């Protein structure tokens, strides 16, 4: 399956300027347009090039370890009241779905003859994945990370440095992912000739949303076939967490044409959307422009970006990929918030029932699934089958989770 990861499929596509309905597009300084056009051209050419697809497919298989397993989580299923199939992206090299995107973009970087990659990171997963690909492809790598995140994800900072990347803590604004993205954009404007900005999610200006989606689309292509092989049919629902939204788009895309398959994206509800302390851009935001694209944004009455809040650094972002905004407006996918507490309860449940420590990001998808299962069962009159994208592993979150559950021994 990996070898066909870029094979064309029918499915929703943006227009030639990257508009998903009223969302997407390019809201960028003119200085970046030439680089975005170059990238757009390189991506389209690569997509049509058998040798690129073969190289990408081989990397995904031999280096990243895909196709990832689709695992039937029986003990978790019994607690939840649904047949839950976990798409084990947590088992990929570097521990999350993000390796797929960075391998694709690193290959493109080489094709464009660029020698340096920069990236923004929240939880550090994308930064680690980028530093990994940079090491593999012998590219200089600079990762921008909000200072708040460098503190709560210190382990990933060390991993990036071990891999040879320079990690720059960003002290502007709220000192989280959005500020890291601003800083990466500034670097890109200044160094665009030799630098590729390796955006970590399906957001930002065109062609990033569609391109990143294409690179991670294998998640859904694999899961769809694996589900057919395992159960003889398609699932009733596919669920994923949504921050910027690449893992969700990656698993949704193959199922968009399957009308009977419900698609659910679970946003970070933080302390609860009503409290204002959350990162649920679709549920609690409004249409606006952020980081080069029109999408749903957490913003005040004057269009100033609001600080997001989530226990999960990877979901702690006040925007969302424009394709999700479009899937929401069209009604094809449903977006619901999951609070920190709900996510952590599901985190614990998966640990205890399956011996799998999920990323806190992915725990939002699990929590949403826990809430969804009885509703879906009632509606269908039978046990539903739900494919959950377990987008990453929780090693990086052990400190945060240990704190949350109060299970760390006090330091002397």
């Amino acid at each position: 399956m990996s070898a066909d990861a870029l094979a064309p499929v029918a499915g929703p596509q943006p227009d030639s300027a990257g508009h998903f309905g009223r969302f997407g597009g390019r809201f960028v300084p003119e200085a970046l347009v030439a680089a975005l056009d170059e990238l757009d051209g390189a991506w389209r050419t690569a997509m049509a090039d058998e040798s690129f697809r073969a190289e990408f497919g081989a990397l995904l298989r031999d280096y990243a370890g895909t196709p990832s397993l689709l695992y039937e989580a029986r003990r978790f299923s019994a607690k939840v009241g649904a047949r839950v199939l976990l798409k084990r992206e947590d088992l990929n090299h570097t521990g999350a779905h993000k390796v797929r995107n960075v391998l694709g973009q690193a290959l493109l970087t080489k094709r464009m003859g660029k020698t340096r990659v920069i990236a923004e990171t929240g939880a550090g997963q994308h930064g680690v994945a980028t530093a990994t690909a940079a090491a593999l492809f012998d590219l200089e790598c600079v990762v921008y990370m909000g200072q708040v995140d460098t503190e709560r994800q210190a382990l990933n900072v060390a991993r990036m440095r071990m891999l040879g990347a320079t990690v720059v803590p960003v002290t502007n604004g709220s000192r989280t992912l959005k500020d890291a993205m601003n800083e990466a954009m500034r670097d890109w404007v200044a160094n665009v000739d030799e630098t590729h900005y390796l955006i970590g999610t399906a957001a930002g200006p065109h062609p990033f949303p569609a391109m990143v989606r294409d690179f991670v689309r294998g998640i859904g292509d694999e899961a769809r076939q694996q589900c057919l092989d395992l159960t003889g049919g398609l699932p009733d629902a596919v669920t994923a967490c949504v921050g910027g939204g690449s893992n969700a788009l990656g698993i949704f895309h193959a199922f968009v044409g399957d009308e009977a398959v419900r698609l659910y994206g679970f946003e970070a509800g933080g302390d609860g959307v009503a409290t204002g302390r959350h990162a649920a851009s679709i549920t609690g935001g409004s249409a606006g422009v952020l980081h080069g694209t029109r999408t749903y944004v957490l913003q005040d009455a004057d269009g100033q970006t609001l600080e997001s809040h989530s226990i999960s650094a990877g979901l702690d972002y006040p925007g969302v990929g424009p394709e999700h905004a479009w899937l929401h407006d069209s009604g094809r996918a449903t977006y619901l918030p999951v609070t920190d507490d709900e996510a952590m309860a599901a985190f614990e449940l998966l640990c205890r029932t399956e011996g799998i420590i999920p990323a806190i990001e992915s725990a939002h998808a699990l929590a949403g699934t826990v809430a969804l299962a009885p509703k879906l069962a009632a509606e269908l009159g039978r046990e539903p089958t739900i494919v959950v994208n377990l987008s990453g592993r929780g090693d990086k979150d052990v400190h945060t989770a240990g704190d949350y559950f109060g299970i760390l021994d006090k330091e002397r």
Partner: protein
Amino acid sequence: MSRIGVAFDKARADGRALLVGCMPAGFPTVEGSIAAMTAMVEAGVDVIEVEIPYSDPVMDGPVIQKASDIALAGGVRTADTMRVVEAVAATGAPVVTMTYWNPVERYGVDVFARDLASAGGTGLITPDLIPDEADEWLAASDAHGLDRTFLVSPSSTDARLAMTVGHCRGFVYATAVMGVTGARARTSDAAPTLVSRTRAVTDLPVGVGLGVGTGAQAGTVAGYADGVIVGSALVRCVLDASSEAEGLAALRTLSAELAEGVRNPVR
């Protein structure tokens, strides 16, 4: 012709470049920003560029971001910036605004244009809005008689340069360096090339920004451009001052130095 166009013509007739000075509205306070901009006009700045603060200013460097953050923390609203425009326009100097697209869209594009025009603003510089995405702004600026300044860059292709200036009115903003705002020790070698490429496709005046901080640099840029745009160096006068009076004094000194610079173009 727009008021900015008239000012550019007059400067050109005098054999000098126009000096455009930028300051965020509401920095350090709404009244403080009016005082700062008024001092700049009094000391020789020809055109004031009022930056409407935005939380995520990706084309601005650390100095203007810090000033914008201070303004926003002080509670400045987009509506307050219209008051700043009105007060500064009363000095007689043309006032152009600059901001990122989201605050304009959120305010309401047509309402923004209407309020800006009625406050006496001449137009808007849009650092993250390219003509490709600007249909609503093209319509609103036409409806309310406002100038449109899009940016051109050293990386713009000839086709994009022609397309972009074709949508400009008033003047064109040439970003002299590939990078964000902020005073630099040297201005860019790419700038004269960009200005001549721009002039090849438009009769509009061309302003050059990003990197100018001294009178000598202003003189150098005045040697090949119609306008010299200065932001961070002026903002720093206020940011680094220990009192409002000290900041205003530093602003006057630098403004006068820059005004002298644009009157002595190095050709």
